[in-house]
């Protein structure tokens, strides 16, 4: 990129809330389903129907507001945003205009070790639209479109950032941080592949040092972090080129074409921007008492930042390890549960992120889909701590635990993998090994201390890895030093 310019980015992130039912009716929000099967008179906008607000949506809105450090005003209301599009059933979207459920929040993000605060203007509740399926190959080449209204009325929270983001990396970090928080507070699945979190990016550039913002474009339809980053980078490059060529950026809506890797202008007949917002007459206002808000605050789970801090300060984990553990709420909870019975944080992290994680990746699972319980995982670490098994044996056991969810104790017993700590048995093996390797014994006696390593290895091999390496070391030394 041309380094004369500074990039200014604001993101609008749409998050589908994981309620059981839609925002204004009792239809289920389950993803998928045959076309037009999760539809009732209300979400279909049949003449005469009326909306009733799902209380969970308000609760999740407030919870999110508190988690993103926002103010939750006592008074909030719904408004109608009027525009025509066949994926809407009423040709207006019930949304919030001037009095949203949360205002003035922020998130701290970290890029290349630098922490930066990104302001959040607001978050408001609204309903999702349906899905247009184009019968032709592209939108423009087909004669007709098919409409499925299953997604109409699924509750959304639109979280609008301040134009504080300065690069595609920061944009990615912001969305990741947001995703992490939203999954921690359990208000959304944040599955980008199912569209349950998606972003619109407002991008502009200006000469470094300039006070005024440049004209921005809004790129919609960013359904993955990769698309988000690529679209921003493309837009920055395109705008730079236009300006360098003496052109002017037009304020417009663009869409990201993932296949071509470019943004396209969306200007069409359907693009007259005057939403004619007015207060939704069918929905009375929402008045939230301080008590209600405080109650939700009290029930808020520990958020990722606080958790990270605790792991570093209380468990003495490195920043790197702490970041690994908190990256996923499931993993962080798993860690905390194991930690209750294993008083060795480093050991937990080493096994979680080491042998265990590698095995999960190898078989195509992730932490949350693995059959291994916290109890079994703790048991494994306990066997290690008690030296009932060696690290080598643990490596053998883990795949079996992942394969069929068996407890490590059972596996150890079934396979006879218990570590040999019986000195008599080990002494017998040592005697054999010493007799079979006179040269190594001589080397040791002649001062080549490291040849003991070879002998230990031979003992371990002879014991099929079951001998307790500590005891082997000790006994071997005493035999050789005799």
């Amino acid at each position, binding site marked *: 990129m041309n380094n004369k310019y500074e990039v200014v980015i604001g993101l609008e992130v749409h998050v589908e809330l994981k*309620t*059981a*039912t839609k925002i204004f*009716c*009792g*239809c*289920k929000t389950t993803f998928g389903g*045959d*076309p*037009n*099967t*999760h*539809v*009732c*008179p209300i979400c*279909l906008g049949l003449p005469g129907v009326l909306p*009733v*607000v*799902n*209380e*969970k949506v*308000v609760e999740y809105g407030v919870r999110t507001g508190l988690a993103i450090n926002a103010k939750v005003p006592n008074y909030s209301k719904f408004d109608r945003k009027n525009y*025509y599009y*066949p994926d809407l059933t009423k*040709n207006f979207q019930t949304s919030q205009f001037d009095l949203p459920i949360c205002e003035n929040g922020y998130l701290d993000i970290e890029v290349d070790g630098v922490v930066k605060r990104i302001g959040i203007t607001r978050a408001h509740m609204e309903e999702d639209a349906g899905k*247009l*399926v*184009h*019968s*032709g190959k592209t*939108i*423009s080449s*087909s*004669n*007709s*479109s*098919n*409409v*499925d*209204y299953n997604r109409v009325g699924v509750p959304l929270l639109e979280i609008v950032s301040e134009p504080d983001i300065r690069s595609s990396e920061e944009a990615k970090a912001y969305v990741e941080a947001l995703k992490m928080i939203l999954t921690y507070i359990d208000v959304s699945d944040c599955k980008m592949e199912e569209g349950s979190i998606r972003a619109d990016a407002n991008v502009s550039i200006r000469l470094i040092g300039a006070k005024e913002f440049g004209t921005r474009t809004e790129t919609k339809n960013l359904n993955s972090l990769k698309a988000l980053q690529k679209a921003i980078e493309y837009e920055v490059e395109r705008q730079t080129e236009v300006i360098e060529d003496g052109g002017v950026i037009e304020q417009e809506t663009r869409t990201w074409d993932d296949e071509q890797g470019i943004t396209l202008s969306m200007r*069409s*007949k*359907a693009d*007259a921007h*005057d939403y*004619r917002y*007015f*207060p939704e*007459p069918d*929905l*009375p*206002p*929402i*008045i939230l008492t301080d008590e209600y808000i405080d109650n939700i605050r009290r029930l808020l789970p520990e958020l990722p930042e606080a958790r990270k801090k605790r792991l570093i300060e209380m468990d003495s984990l490195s920043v790197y390890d702490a970041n690994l553990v908190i990256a996923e709420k499931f993993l962080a909870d798993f860690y905390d549960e194991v930690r209750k019975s294993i008083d060795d944080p480093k050991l937990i992290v080493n096994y979680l992120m080491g042998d265990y994680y590698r095995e999960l990746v190898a078989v195509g699972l992730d932490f949350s889909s693995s059959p291994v319980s916290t109890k079994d995982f703790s048991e494994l670490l306990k066997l290690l701590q008690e030296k009932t098994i060696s690290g080598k044996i643990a490596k053998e056991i883990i795949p079996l635990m992942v394969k069929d969810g068996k407890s490590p104790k059972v596996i150890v017993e079934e396979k006879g993998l218990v570590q040999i700590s019986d000195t008599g048995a080990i002494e017998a093996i040592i005697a054999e090994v010493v007799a079979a390797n006179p040269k190594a014994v001589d080397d040791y006696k002649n001062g080549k201390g490291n040849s003991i390593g070879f002998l230990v290895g031979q003992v371990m091999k002879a014991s099929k890895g079951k001998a307790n390496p500590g005891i082997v070391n000790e006994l071997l030394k005493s035999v050789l030093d005799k």
Partner: protein
Amino acid sequence: MSITKKDIIHVADLARLGLNDEETIKYEKELNDVLNFMEKLNELNTDDVEPTSHVLDIHNVFRSDVVEDSLDVEDVLANAPDRDEDYFKVPSIL
């Protein structure tokens, strides 16, 4: 304020009413009449008056997050002007 032909075309576009020329001219006159009639409100000073969008003093009307039956897909599509299997069918978006 007075409404011009351009305003009429813009408003008709926002409201998705494909007016013909004759209608545009007719609405230009009629809307101006009606809006003149509405100008009367400007006689009143309402600077310190709160707007009333709901006459009833009620708030926080919520439903619990409990799944209810959706419609049978045949009922959903019962009145559809055009359908393609279980989808509503519309002309393409150009």
